[in-house]
């Protein structure tokens, strides 16, 4: 028992530190009623009802202070356990919205201004969706996670060529650039190359929209690879994710969700939604993207009732 405890101690420590994060809602919040004041139920009962999670990914390199990062990736995920349906809605990071902390701005700034609570509240109030939990992953965390699971298999849709890709992961100068060429087709990607694939946007006509599509490809590849893992892999994973993962999902709910996640094995039951034109269009203030709420809200309510 002592050996087992010692083996799983790092994973348990990370699980306790990372999960069940308290959501701080900005005050006053027009959406306070949407959230339960006690979001984390201690019960580990099987998850049966539909739930919605906001996935947040941030550049948390040395250009940013730890608590004030932008969320370069925002994906709203709705899971319906009874039908094993998953819907992933990518929110453009440059979408110009009313921020829950007050005023208007690009939606990727909500997290920077008020943490995960502000990001959740902003998405919730603007899209009219109830969000149960959030998961935040840092840039380096994603790289380490993919390496810890031995890489992922992805069909990269096209050559991603970028002459001015930010060299801010392992570089001394986080403002410098590097050249990136991720070639097209089926391949096995390590963490760094997967990051280059999902992060580059200079060579993509659809800019952030194209990047969102690539992010969803990589997310699904991670999910597929995660099915090959065993409980004994947890210490290595926890070492990879130390400090790079935060979630409001409580430990008991994580335990309840694991068997559910393993049961999703039909890719055709995963809906991918992107807010391409005419749902959005460029030319907003400060290079932002303007939403066509008249089209977006019916679409969102269709997938996130």
């Amino acid at each position, binding site marked *: *028992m*002592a*050996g*087992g405890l*010692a*083996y*799983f101690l790092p994973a348990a420590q990370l699980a306790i530190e990372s999960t069940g994060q308290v959501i701080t809602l900005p005050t006053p919040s027009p959406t306070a009623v949407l959230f339960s004041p006690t979001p984390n139920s201690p019960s580990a009962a099987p998850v049966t009802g539909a739930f919605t999670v906001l996935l947040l990914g941030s550049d948390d390199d040395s250009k940013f202070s730890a608590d004030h990062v932008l969320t370069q990736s925002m994906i709203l995920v709705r899971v319906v356990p009874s039908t094993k349906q998953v819907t992933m809605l990518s929110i453009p990071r440059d979408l110009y919205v009313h921020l829950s902390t007050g005023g208007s701005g690009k939606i990727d700034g909500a997290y920077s201004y008020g943490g995960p609570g502000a990001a959740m509240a902003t998405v919730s109030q603007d899209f009219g969706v109830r969000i149960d939990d959030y998961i935040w992953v840092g840039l380096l965390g994603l790289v380490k996670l993919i*390496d*810890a*699971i*031995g*890489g*992922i*298999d*992805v*069909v990269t*849709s*096209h*050559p*991603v*060529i*970028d*002459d*001015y890709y930010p060299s801010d992961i392992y570089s001394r100068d986080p403002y410098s*650039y*590097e*050249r990136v*060429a991720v*070639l*097209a*087709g*089926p*391949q*096995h990607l390590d963490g760094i190359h997967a990051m280059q694939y999902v992060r580059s946007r*200079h*060579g*993509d*006509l*659809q800019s952030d929209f*194209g990047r969102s*599509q690539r992010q969803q*490809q990589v997310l*699904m*590849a991670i999910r*597929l*690879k995660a*099915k*090959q*893992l*065993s409980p*004994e*892999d947890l210490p*290595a994973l926890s070492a990879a994710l130390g400090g790079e993962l935060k979630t409001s999902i409580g430990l008991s709910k994580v335990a309840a969700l694991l068997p559910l996640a393993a049961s999703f094995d039909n*890719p055709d039951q995963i809906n991918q939604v992107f807010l*391409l034109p005419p749902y959005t269009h460029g030319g907003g203030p400060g290079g932002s993207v303007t939403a066509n709420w008249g089209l977006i809200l019916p679409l969102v309510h269709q997938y996130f009732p």
Partner: protein
Amino acid sequence: MIARYVLGAFLAVVMLVFGTTTYVFLGTRTSHVAEIPQKPTVATPRAQAFSMSGTLYIIQNGALYSLSAGRFHQLTPEAGWTMPSLLPNGTQLVAVKRYPTFSDVYILNRFGQPTKRLTSNIAPARNTDIGANHWSFYPRVSADGKTLWMSYDQPKFGYDVVMSIWALPIGAPIRQGKLWTNAADYSGGDVQPIPVRTGMIYTKYTYGPDNKLVGQLWFTNKAYSAGRALTTPGEDCRSPAVSPSGTQIAMICTYEKQISYLMIASWNGATLGARKGIITNQLVAQPVWAPDGSGIAYLAPGAPAGPFQLWFLPKAAYAPAPTPSPSPDASPSASPTPVAPVKPVQVTTNNGFDATSPLAWG
């Protein structure tokens, strides 16, 4: 009293031993997903795997390997080598050496020794703009051995960097080269040129009718002319490989999904015939025809979501079975002998080959 101390010490030792054993045991129970692939020279093909004809050239972790008579040989160090292709004389190769900010094409002898650098893609010493470097990928040499075909990132349009197909005399500088294709903006561009008798087949990445980026095989026989599409956007195809007879093309098609099919089609020098899916249940990449026509080698994971291994599909799996000539003493009522389906052979098990690099086989 002494016995109690002894018992306590004994139990402490037992606890220490069991605790350590449990810890080590759990460590050995980890899944194999994060294992580092073995070098091909360490993990030779399984003993029961058949020997493939000729010599196959393959890349793992930036090193060029040859596989002949069932044994791998490491020809270059792990130094960014990729995309080998045989010269028509069969005794030399062209391959790309990839550096962090640029890549160059070299001629190598069959033992992996670089004998000549064919491109000079590093930025001039005084130019501090990282964008002044260039990529060359997918080199091929024409049948007469005089022309180098490659994907090259010129012209550039600011942030919009796309690959285009270039042809240049072997050993000549790029200024003597000829731009052959007009790549679509913000698409990744045109890659994988395959010179054929009637022109050049290549893969063009472009936006399909549904605004998704897709690959299509194209054919052109004129410089600075895209030519015409051989496959539809919906098929989403790439990695063309022409059979030794020049009458068939193998390719990878994904139908715009995170899957890949190995397809073959007849080729008459201008158009593709009906497609036939010959591998539909693997994440297949980089098909190459055996020089003796005995089958097709390709890369695919050995385990779900794992690193790519070498596989071989015998010809019998996709070629129409020959019609047996009627035996004079055969009974007219005799039922035909059932034929077992031919399955692909997994040649390697613990490697991690570069699925972005074409294979060369001669």
